[in-house]
């Protein structure tokens, strides 16, 4: 059964008997008042009988409290038959003495009244049934039928009052059902007698789709939810769905999970979404919302985590086929049991039914990721505010379970500020916007992050491309002509590479020229060196010659001097 976490949160001011009806015990803070009668009223077909039978059956099977059903309308066999479809085996329970069904038949035609009487017979029957199995729970369905069978209203009313008092004395928790009357809760004003707890069941049809609603009108001595809570009847009985959880409490995870697209993870601060967060992908038609969702599902399954994909537009096989074309093989995940795809037209049933179906599947499969594609289609079965309430409850529920949820939403409006998308934008943690960017005669996809709570995220518009290999995000080209995308971006990139090639070519040309110039210069330098050397040589030669000349002249002078002196003497001799 569902967690009864709220049960402990609310102080038990009054002993209560859990009904076992999923959701109801949360609203009532633990169940119906123990040992007291409660009134369940509603129109025909609002589910009163089923409600009460479920109370008895759950009591007998789950809480070990035997119960007595005293029916004034249907025969025991009819009753057994009617609830078999809900998986309640009343026959077996009766054999095991866990429950007892007593059909009280009143036929006005065979009854004559004369003089004073009381309803001791009913008391005795009920008392006998209670005592024979030690019942703790009693259902009287619908006791108002007594009014049709008996004439003396004075006696009846007095006896009913006595009956409810007697039930209290017996210490059994009782449910009394009553048909809704005009201007009052029940036709015979039973609410006057049973005043501890009154629950009203309603059944409304709007837009040809019916919604069952439950409201606790009164619960003496106890806190209780006061809203109208939608509930459903399906193969597991009744489930009541609290419109919102009473408190905003949930597990908050700091762990991040990849979106399956590395470039998107980068935009989201490098690692992706927080686990347990809610993600909205909105965009106009054909912008790749489903592909994004499928990539996320794929990434979840690749992490060996489970994922449920609720598709409101396409059947599962179509999704699988379509995604194969962009390189995502969901079939392997389906086969390995990591992925479930559930497809249903939104018009199949009301929002509440959808919500309950999602609840149930999520509870059963325990996924880490849930995908709803697209939520906008749900508007066909409810008003915007209903869808919003649906999503609030869904997000509350999933966040409570720490499940990451991704919605896709189709926006018809291309003006960003007006795209409130069923007003979920304030509920979600991450909002990705995928949109068409039309320019130069082509349509391209652009993506940006509208918001992402609690993480640094890119403010850039990225071009979102879908190829055979998958999805990718590329930086848009910011050139002199503005933001370029698609072919224009490609062209720009191409022209850039051409330019680069040309530039490198030119560069090498210049290099060669420089090389050559250098060689020329070097040659020149060497020739100059030569010249310099020869000049130097020449200069040196002059010096040497000069020195030689000087030396020789010195020698000559010396020789001359010598000669002169010797000549003088010679001359003398000769003389």
């Amino acid at each position, binding site marked *: 059964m569902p967690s009864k976490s709220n049960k402990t949160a609310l102080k038990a001011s009054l002993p209560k008997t859990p009904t076992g009806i999923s959701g109801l015990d949360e609203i009532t803070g633990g169940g119906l008042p123990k040992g007291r009668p409660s009134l369940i009223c509603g129109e025909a077909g609002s589910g009163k009988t089923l409600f009460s039978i479920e109370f008895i059956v759950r009591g007998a099977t789950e809480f070990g409290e035997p119960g007595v059903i005293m029916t004034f309308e249907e025969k025991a066999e009819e009753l057994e038959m009617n609830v078999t479809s809900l998986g309640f085996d009343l026959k077996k329970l009766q054999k095991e003495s866990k429950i007892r069904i007593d059909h009280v*038949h009143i036929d006005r035609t*065979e009854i004559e*009244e004369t*003089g004073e*009487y009381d*309803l001791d017979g*009913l008391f005795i*029957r009920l008392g*006998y049934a209670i005592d024979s199995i030690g019942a703790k729970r009693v259902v009287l369905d619908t006791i108002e039928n007594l009014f049709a069978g008996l004439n003396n209203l004075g006696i009846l009313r007095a006896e009913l009052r006595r009956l409810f008092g007697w039930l209290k004395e017996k210490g059994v928790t009782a449910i009394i059902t009553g048909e809704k009357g005009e201007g009052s809760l029940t036709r015979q004003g039973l609410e006057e007698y049973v005043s501890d707890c009154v629950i009203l069941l309603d059944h409304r049809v709007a837009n040809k789709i019916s919604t069952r609603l439950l409201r606790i009108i009164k619960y003496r001595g106890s806190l209780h939810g006061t809203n109208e809570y939608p509930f459903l009847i399906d193969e597991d009985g009744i489930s009541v769905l609290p419109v919102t959880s009473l408190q905003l409490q949930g597990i908050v995870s700091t762990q991040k999970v990849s979106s399956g697209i590395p470039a998107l993870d980068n935009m989201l601060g490098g690692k992706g979404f927080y686990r347990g967060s809610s993600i909205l992908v909105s965009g106009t038609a054909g912008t790749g919302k489903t592909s994004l969702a499928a990539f996320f599902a794929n990434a979840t399954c690749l992490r060996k985590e489970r994922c449920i994909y609720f598709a409101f537009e396409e059947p599962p096989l179509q999704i699988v086929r379509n995604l194969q074309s962009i390189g995502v093989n969901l079939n392997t995940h389906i086969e390995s049991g990591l992925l479930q795809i559930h497809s249903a037209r939104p018009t199949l049933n009301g929002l509440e039914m959808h919500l309950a179906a999602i609840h149930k599947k999520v509870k059963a499969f325990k996924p880490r990721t849930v995908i709803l594609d697209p939520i906008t289609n749900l508007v066909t079965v409810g008003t915007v505010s209903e869808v919003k309430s649906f999503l609030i409850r869904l997000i509350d529920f999933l966040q409570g379970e720490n499940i990451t949820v991704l919605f896709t939403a189709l926006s018809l409006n291309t003006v960003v500020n007006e795209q409130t998308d069923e007003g979920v934008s304030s509920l979600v943690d991450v909002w990705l916007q995928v949109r068409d960017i039309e320019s130069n005669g082509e349509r391209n996809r652009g993506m940006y992050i509208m918001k992402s709570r609690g993480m640094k995220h890119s403010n850039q518009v990225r071009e979102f491309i879908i190829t055979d290999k998958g999805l990718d995000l590329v930086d848009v080209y910011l050139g002199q002509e503005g933001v370029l995308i698609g072919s224009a971006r490609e062209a720009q990139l191409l022209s850039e590479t051409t330019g680069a090639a040309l530039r490198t070519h030119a560069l090498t040309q210049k290099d060669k020229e420089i090389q050559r110039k250098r060689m020329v210069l070097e040659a020149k330098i060497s020739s100059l060196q030569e010249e310099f050397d020869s000049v130097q040589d020449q200069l040196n030669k002059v010096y040497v010659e000069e020195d030689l000349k000087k030396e020789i002249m010195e020698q000559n002078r010396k020789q001359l001097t010598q000669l002169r002196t010797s000549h003088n003497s010679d001359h003398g001799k000769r003389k």
Partner: protein
Amino acid sequence: MVKESKVKKVTKGKKTAKMEEDFWELRLYVAGNTPKSVAAINNLKKYCAEHLVDKYKLEVIDLLVKPQLAAGDQILAIPTLVRKVPVPIRKIIGDLSNEEKVLVGLNIRPVKK
């Protein structure tokens, strides 16, 4: 109803002979010795002695003693008089203080005093 009317017609013709063939099997459900129960028993006994001499069988069932019998005859009110035979089953609830009503209810033709 057809049968009853037939009976009536027959009793008109051969009164004493037919009356002996008719037989009333009555059950009176009570709960303890409440004034209502006691009144009902006394009233019924009086009517039977008056109108159904030797033509009836009366069983008084105290539901306080045998509560399991209450469901069988669909007893709600106390006291309840059930006419098992002749069929169809008729029930008269209350302390049976109104003789006329009881006799009409049980389809007993009163013996003229």
